[in-house]
C-alpha cells in the first residue's frame, strides 16, 4: 500500500489544500464535508471468433465533494484536481446548507473504528497497471481451447479479461485522511452451443480483488468447466408445470436470493425512509433459529471486499440476522447517525461522481446443521431444485422478488428428475426468509461478476449453503 503522502502526490494536493476545500464546503453552515479523490484505470481484452482482436483502456479521474446538513446532501464533483475546480465544486456542494431544513442530526459525529491497525484484504502482489496487455492474450486463447476441448458442440466462444485499479483518497471535516487501492480482475465467457440444429447459450465468470497473480491455469480450467458443465441437461431441459412448490436452492450462486430478497430490505436508507418491509422489525424474529445472515467486507480477495468504505469507515463483517433475529441494518454515516448506531462500513459509491449510500458487500448465510444438499432433496416429495440463477429483482416496499432460473431439475419423490430451464421463481422476501425450513452445511461463496445496480453500480458477491424453502411460486407452462 502507498503512504498518505504518495496518495497526496498522486492527486497533486497538499494537506493544507484539503483543509481549505473542506472549509469552503462548510462555509454556509454545513455540518459535515468530505472529499473523495479517485484515479481509476480500466482495461479489457476480448477474444471473439478465435482471435484476441479487440481491447482498450479507459481512465476516470476526479474528486467528489459532499456537504451534509443533517441528513440532507449537497454534492458536486470535478474531473480534475486543479484547486480552482475543486473550490468551485466545494462551493456548489455547500448550497445544501441553505436549501435544507434542520433534519434529524449530523453524520459528522466522531466515529471510533472497531478495527485497529491497517487492514488489507486484497494485497496486490503484481499491479495490473504495470503489465503489458499482450501478456494476457494467451490467457484468453487457453480459455477458448479449454472450452472447446470439453465439448464438441461449442460453436462460438467470446472470452474477455478485464482489470481495473482505483486509487482512492478521502478526507473529511473531522480531519481524517483515509486511502485505499482497489484492484479487481475478471475473466468472463459466453459460449454458443449447437446440437442437432438447436442452439443454447451459457456464460460464466470469475472475479476477484487481486493483482495479476490471480490469472492462473487453474482459474482458466475452473471457468471452462463452469461454462460447459450441465449442457447435456440444458439441451434436454423443458419448462415444468408451474405453481407453488418447495424449492431446494443449491449452494453458491443462489445467494443472490439473500442479496435481492432480503439484503436490499436491510439497507438502512430504505428503512430510514420507512420504505422497507423490515422497517419496524429490528430485534424481531425474521427467520428460524440457527439462521445467520452476514454482509462481509473482510473476505480476502473477494469481489465485494473493501478495506475501507467510501466514507473512510473500516471494512467489517456485519451480522444482519443472528440466530433468526434481525440485529443490524447496513449503514452509511447518515443512517447510522439517524439510528444512533456506529456505521457498519456500507457507505459505498460507484465513483467520485456519486454520493455514498448504504450498499451490500459480500452477502451470505452461514452453514446450517441439516446435513447435505442431497439430504434436503431427499426430504421433498414434489418440488424443484435450482442451481443457477440470474436477473434477480425486488420491490423494496412490498418485498416481492423474482429470479430467473437458468438451470435446475424437478424433484420427484426425493430424487432429481427432469432438467428445467427458462423459468422464474417469484416470492416475498420476509415470507421466503421465514419459510427456510432446512439449511445444509455446505456454504459456498460464489465468485462470479456480481454487480448490484441500486441507483449506482457496486461490485458485490454472494453465497449461501443449500437451503430448502417450503413454498415458492414457480413459473412454467
Amino acid at each position, binding site marked *: 500500500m502507498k503512504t498518505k503522502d504518495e496518495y497526496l502526490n498522486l492527486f497533486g494536493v497538499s494537506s493544507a489544500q484539503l483543509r481549505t476545500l473542506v472549509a469552503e464546503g462548510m462555509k454556509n453552515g454545513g455540518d459535515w464535508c468530505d472529499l473523495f479523490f479517485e484515479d481509476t484505470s480500466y482495461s479489457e481484452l476480448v477474444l471473439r471468433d478465435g482471435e484476441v482482436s479487440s481491447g*482498450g483502456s479507459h481512465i476516470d479521474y476526479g474528486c467528489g465533494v459532499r456537504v451534509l446538513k443533517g441528513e440532507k446532501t449537497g454534492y458536486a464533483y470535478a474531473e480534475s484536481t486543479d484547486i480552482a475546480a475543486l473550490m468551485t465544486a466545494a462551493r456548489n456542494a455547500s448550497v445544501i446548507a441553505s436549501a435544507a431544513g434542520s433534519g434529524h442530526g449530523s453524520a459528522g459525529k466522531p466515529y471510533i473504528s472497531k478495527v485497529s491497525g491497517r487492514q488489507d484484504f486484497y494485497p496486490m502482489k503484481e499491479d495490473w497497471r504495470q503489465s503489458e496487455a499482450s501478456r494476457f492474450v494467451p490467457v484468453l486463447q487457453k480459455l477458448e481451447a479449454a472450452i472447446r476441448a470439453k465439448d464438441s458442440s461449442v460453436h462460438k466462444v467470446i472470452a474477455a479479461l478485464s482489470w481495473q485499479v482505483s486509487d482512492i483518497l478521502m478526507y473529511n471535516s473531522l480531519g481524517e485522511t483515509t486511502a485505499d487501492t482497489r484492484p479487481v480482475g475478471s475473466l468472463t465467457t459466453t459460449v454458443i452451443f449447437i446440437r442437432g440444429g438447436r442452439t443454447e447459450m451459457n456464460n460464466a465468470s470469475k472475479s476477484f480483488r487481486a493483482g495479476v497473480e490471480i490469472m492462473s491455469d487453474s482459474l482458466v480450467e475452473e471457468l471452462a468447466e463452469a461454462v460447459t458443465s450441465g449442457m447435456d441437461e440444458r439441451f434436454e431441459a423443458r419448462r415444468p408445470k408451474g405453481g407453488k412448490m418447495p424449492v431446494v436452492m443449491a449452494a453458491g450462486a443462489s445467494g443472490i436470493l439473500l442479496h435481492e430478497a432480503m439484503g436490499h430490505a436491510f439497507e438502512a436508507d430504505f428503512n430510514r*425512509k420507512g420504505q422497507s418491509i423490515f422497517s419496524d422489525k429490528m430485534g424481531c424474529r425474521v427467520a428460524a433459529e440457527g439462521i445467520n445472515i452476514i454482509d462481509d467486507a473482510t473476505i480476502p480477495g473477494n469481489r465485494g471486499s473493501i478495506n475501507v468504505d467510501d466514507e473512510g469507515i473500516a471494512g467489517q463483517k456485519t451480522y444482519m440476522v443472528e440466530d433468526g433475529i434481525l440485529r443490524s441494518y447496513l449503514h452509511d454515516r447518515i443512517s447510522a447517525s439517524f439510528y444512533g448506531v456506529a456505521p457498519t462500513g456500507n457507505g459505498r459509491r460507484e465513483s467520485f461522481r456519486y454520493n455514498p449510500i448504504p450498499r451490500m458487500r459480500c452477502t451470505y448465510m452461514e452453514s446450517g446443521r441439516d446435513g447435505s444438499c442431497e439430504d434436503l432433496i431427499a426430504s421433498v416429495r414434489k418440488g424443484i431444485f435450482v442451481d443457477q440463477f440470474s436477473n434477480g429483482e425486488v420491490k423494496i416496499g412490498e418485498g416481492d422478488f423474482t429470479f430467473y432460473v437458468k438451470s435446475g431439475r424437478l424433484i420427484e419423490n426425493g430424487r432429481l428428475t427432469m432438467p428445467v430451464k427458462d423459468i422464474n421463481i417469484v416470492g416475498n422476501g420476509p415470507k421466503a426468509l421465514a419459510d427456510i425450513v432446512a439449511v445444509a452445511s455446505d456454504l459456498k461463496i460464489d465468485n462470479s461478476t456480481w454487480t448490484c445496480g441500486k441507483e449506482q453500480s457496486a461490485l458485490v458477491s454472494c453465497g449461501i449453503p443449500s437451503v430448502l424453502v417450503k413454498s415458492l411460486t414457480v413459473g412454467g407452462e
Partner: protein
Amino acid sequence: MLEKEELKLTRECLQMALEAGASKARASLSKNEMSIVATLDSEVDKVSGCLDRSISLNLYVDGRYGTFSTNKLDRESLRAFIGKAVGTTRMLAEDPARDLPDPARTAKDAKDGKELGICDPAWESVTPEQRIAFALGNAISAYDKKWKIVSQEGEYSDSQYHNYVVDTQGTEVLHSETSFEFFTELTIEDNRGHKYSGGWWEASPLLKDFHPEKVGPAALEEAVMQIGPKRCPSGKYRAVIDSEVSQKVLNPILNALNAFSIQQKNSFLTDSLGKQIFPAGLDIMDIPRTPGEACGKMFDSEGVASSNHYIIKDGVVQEYFVNTYMANKLGIPPTIEDAIRPYIPPLNMPGGRNELMQLCQDGILITDFCGGNSNPATGDFSYAIQGYRFKDGKIVHPVREMLITGNIVKLWGQIIAAGNDARRCRAKLTPTLAFDNVDFSG
C-alpha cells in the same frame, strides 16, 4: 454549450493518433451538464451539480483495432494516453473487417447539433431557485382512512448533452439535446400494515412541454390501485401490456435483429430478412429524425446518418442492424448500428389501455415487469409481472406473484391490437399492446 476549444481539442486527437502511428481514427467527445434536486417527504434531500466530459477513441493501427476513453483532457495527458493506446492496439490480433464507415454514409446535415430542435435555449436560464421550486412544488400530500403515505421521494433534473464525432475520413457530426425530468416514488401503507409503492416519470427535451405536475398524482394512483392484491388461477388469458412497460416485449426483437447476434448464431431471427415472421398488418419503425421529439438523433456512434424507415412492415422483416464491422464480417450491406427511436404504429385500435381492455373484455392488464429473461437464441421468455385482473373491460383487482411464459415470435403472432398511447418522452415508442392466449402462472 460546447466551446470551440473543446471541438478543436477533439479534432487534435485525430492528429495525435495519426502521429502516434494509427492509420485511421475516430474521436467522440461527450459533454453532459446536469443539475439534480432530490426531495424526501416534501423537503430538499439532495442537490447535485455535475459536468462530465470525456473523449472516446476508436483506433485502427496496422490492421488492428482498439477502443479507449479518458476524461483527462489536457493536451499533455491526451498525447501520452493516445501514444500508449496505439501501442496497446498493436498488441492485438489483426482484424481486416474493422474499418471506418464509408464516408458517403455518414451524416452531412448534423452540423450545429440543433437540427432536430431538441436543444432548448431555455435550459441556460434555469436558476437553482427554479430547480428547487420544481422539485418541491410537485410533491403531494394525501391521506385516506384506508391508507397513508409512508414516504415520498422526488427527483427533478435537467441536463444539456452534446456529442461531437469526427474521424480521419472527414466525418464531422454534432448532436445536442436538453432534458427536463421529474420522477416520484411513493410508498403507502394500508390499514393492515402492508406497503405498496408507485412511481411515475415525465420528461421533455423542451421546458415548454415539461409537465411535472402529472407525476405525483400518477404515482399515488399507481400505489393505491395495488391495495388488496389477489391471486389468479394459472391459465391462458388475454394480456394487455401497458404502454409504460410494453417495450419489454419489443426489446428481444430488436436485439435479435442486431447483426452481432446473427453473426454469433445467438438470434431467434437468423435468416428472417425479407420473410413474413410477424402477422400481416404489424409495422415497427425507426423514427429518429422527428423534429422536437425526445431521444432522436441524426447519426449513430459511427457517424452514419439515421433515417425514418420501417424495421418490420406488414409483418415482414425489413432490416438487420448492421454496423461497418459486421457488414464486412458477414459480407452484407451496412445499415444503422441499432434502432434509435423505434415506434409501433396503432394496429386495429386507435386508443389507449382502457380501449384495449374494452376490446379484450376479459384478461390481465400488465403494468410492470419484475425480473425475468428472454433466451436470445430461441426467443423463449419468462417474466414476472404485476398488474390487474380485468373483466367486462374494467379492472376488478390487482394481481401479484404471477408470471407470463412463452415465445416472443409466437406472442407477437397472437397480437390483437396496438394502441396509440406511446409515451413521447421515452426512447422506445411502444403503445399499449394486447395479445391473445398468453400463459399466466402464479
